[in-house]
């Protein structure tokens, strides 16, 4: 049988429909499509895809189970190495990880590994007869700070080994960026809740409303009997460009904009937390967060949404599928553009005019690409005299974050780098004995799967440390 050169397309909501709702965009493979896609896998001996996965999922093995219809078996294979398969199948940048290494991808399109992972996980989660095997306790207690992807992974891996785990979460809901950052239409919150519920069934305690560094310190956690601590506290404070006008009303950080919509449900019809809806919106940045903010703005009723990015499409760091979806939905990409100033309304005759201080536009300059910079990407250079203005009511800054200082400031001996990221060695160990860290708190803003990889590494190291 000849191999289909193309991946089976992911069924999705029509762009014109989904641009106006918060339901999930990608609908997932059917059993039939999944089996057919699985059959494209060559099951090659050297398994390059596994090396491309930050948590080394046994990819050919789980795909082989799909081929024969053993979907639950496929799930069990994935869950040996991944705590959050339904999440990863949706948000991993597979095109630069597992799928980029696929042998089939040399000649054709690679196997849709992420789509198959999602199919298997969703099918498993939809079953009500699944019971979790609670492992026997090994008597050790470990605290996990933060319930985002790194914390959940670390907690899951250790809990499966019999550790008593308590996760401390600062917000009122567990999930971290999976809940406050990634929108419903890309990662339904019910899926995150389900993954957290599975961990609870494994015996993991989740304490919300506890801010480590404030409510409790790392030292107090040791006093309470925890023998090791994993810090996965996430990315922290948003960066701004330091251009004029960033304090005008209508300028948001992506964290604020997305938190209002996702965590606080401002997208609903009767929100208790307000958000600016409608009008024209400019999102500055080119990562996944920028795509999420732009597509959220569109769904909140914006008449026009721009992505303003200083490099070209080639350098755009967002997941390919999200960029394609954003374009299909009608988001306009102002590539090779950089903001210079955000403009606001000011009525010189009436200082009490309610419109005063609200955003009216943004001054941008065109850019061109020069020589490669330290990141290896070509450096964007302003084109003199190319300044122009766009009319916008809302500006969302999605240009990264800087680590939160709360834990560093209250933990003696915990060293951070120049950018504020916690310093760890190759085992995920910080400069404090028994304290491990991973995810954005270490690296600055990165991906869900790299945070999960770090949580996994730390779990392994903690296990070795406590059994030494």
């Amino acid at each position, binding site marked *: 049988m000849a191999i289909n050169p193309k991946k089976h397309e992911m069924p999705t909501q029509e762009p014109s429909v989904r641009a106006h709702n918060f339901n999930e965009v990608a609908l997932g493979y059917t059993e039939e499509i999944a089996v057919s896609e699985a059959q494209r896998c060559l099951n090659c001996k050297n398994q390059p895809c596994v090396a491309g996965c930050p948590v080394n999922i046994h990819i050919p093995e789980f795909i082989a189970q799909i081929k024969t219809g053993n979907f639950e078996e496929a799930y069990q294979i994935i869950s040996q190495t991944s705590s959050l398969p339904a999440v990863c199948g949706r948000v991993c940048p597979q095109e630069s990880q597992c799928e980029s290494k696929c042998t089939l991808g040399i000649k054709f399109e690679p196997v849709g590994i992420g789509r198959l992972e999602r199919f298997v996980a969703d099918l498993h989660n939809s079953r009500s007869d699944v019971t979790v095997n609670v492992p026997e306790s090994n008597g050790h207690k470990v605290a996990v700070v933060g319930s985002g992807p790194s914390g959940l992974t670390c907690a899951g891996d250790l809990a499966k080994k019999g550790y008593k785990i308590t996760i401390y979460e600062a917000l*009122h809901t567990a999930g971290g960026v999976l809940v406050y950052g990634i929108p419903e239409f890309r990662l339904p919150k019910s899926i995150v809740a389900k993954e957290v519920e599975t961990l609870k069934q494994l015996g993991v305690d989740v304490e919300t409303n506890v*801010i480590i560094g404030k409510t409790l310190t790392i030292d107090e956690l040791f006093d309470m009997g925890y023998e090791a601590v994993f810090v996965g506290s996430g990315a922290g*404070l948003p960066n*701004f460009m330091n251009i004029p006008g960033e304090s005008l009303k209508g300028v948001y950080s992506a964290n604020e904009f997305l938190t209002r919509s996702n965590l*606080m449900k401002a997208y609903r019809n009767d929100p208790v*937390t307000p958000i600016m809806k409608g009008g024209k919106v400019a999102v500055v940045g080119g990562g996944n967060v920028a795509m999420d903010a732009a597509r959220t703005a569109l769904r909140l009723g914006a008449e026009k949404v721009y992505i303003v990015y200083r490099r070209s499409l080639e350098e755009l760091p967002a997941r390919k599928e999200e960029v394609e979806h954003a374009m299909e939905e009608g988001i306009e990409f102002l590539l090779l553009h950089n903001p210079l100033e955000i403009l606001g309304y000011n009525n010189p005759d009436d200082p009490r005019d*309610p419109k005063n201080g609200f955003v009216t536009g943004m001054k941008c300059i065109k850019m061109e690409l020069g020589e490669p910079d330290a990141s290896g990407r070509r450096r964007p250079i302003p084109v003199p005299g190319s300044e122009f203005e766009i009319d916008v009511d809302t500006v969302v800054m999605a240009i990264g974050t800087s680590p939160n200082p709360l834990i560093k400031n209250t933990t003696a001996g915990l060293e951070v780098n120049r950018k504020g990221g916690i310093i760890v060695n190759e085992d995920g160990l910080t400069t404090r004995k028994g304290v491990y860290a991973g995810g954005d708190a270490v690296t600055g803003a990165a991906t869900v799967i790299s945070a999960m990889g770090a949580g996994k590494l730390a779990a392994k190291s903690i296990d070795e440390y406590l059994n030494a």
Partner: protein
Amino acid sequence: MYRIVSKKPLNSTVTQMEIEAPLVARKAKPGQFIILRVDEDGERIPLTIAGSDAEKGTVKIIFQIVGGTTEKLNHKEEGEYLQDFAGPLGVATHTEGIKKVCIVGGGVGCAIAMPVAQEFHRLGAEVTSIIGFRNKDILILEDEFKACSDRLFVMTDDGSYARKGNVTVPLKEMLEAGETFDMIITIGPLIMMKFVVLAAKPYNVPVTVSMNPIMIDGTGMCGCCRLTLHQDGKAVTKFACVDGPDFNGYEVDFDEAMSRNRMYADFEAHAREEACNLFKKGEN
């Protein structure tokens, strides 16, 4: 869930509650704040801590009914529970080296100023307090301030109680008469704090202001509470939730902060009306 241990109205729009939150109570210091949600799907709102009892495990909050959430909060009774209560957040008010302090509180801001005054009194500093209200009906905490102040000035805008005028009147009089303070700490409406700073400026007395911007997470994640400080001729962005809420009054860009605080004024007014209607319906 966090139990409401006691509830007491201080005036028609200001209520005091004691909430059972042992972990927060153990750490709470004057000047810090908490974030609460009244119920599932509720809004997160920051409220400054008005006192705490580590032994009882309770934290006192005093709030003014200004929007939908505070309206709902005010309808919760003793023995009922709040959904979420997290803290203590922010940096505590600095007290080191301050032997003579002037506390200037305005309106419901006096609720936050009170534990600060009490703390200085406890530490043995000489405490002068000035508390101001629009009128007699909304006066709160006079006795509490009397108990912890070496001198107390009570002011009302309309003269319906004590002395007529705003809080800067006695402050200016003292400064003009040659009196000085190691620190003036002011807590209240932004416009009042701005004028306290202006009043102190000619006399070079340091002023600490307690900022109360709009917040969402309150833990250093969303950046909503940012404000601009002017330090050595440079504009610097700071976050009230982790860098504050106390700041050097001479550095704060008050006009920007006032503008930002009005961003959702329409929404708030509407939300409060909705909440009121909801409760009225329930009572019928």
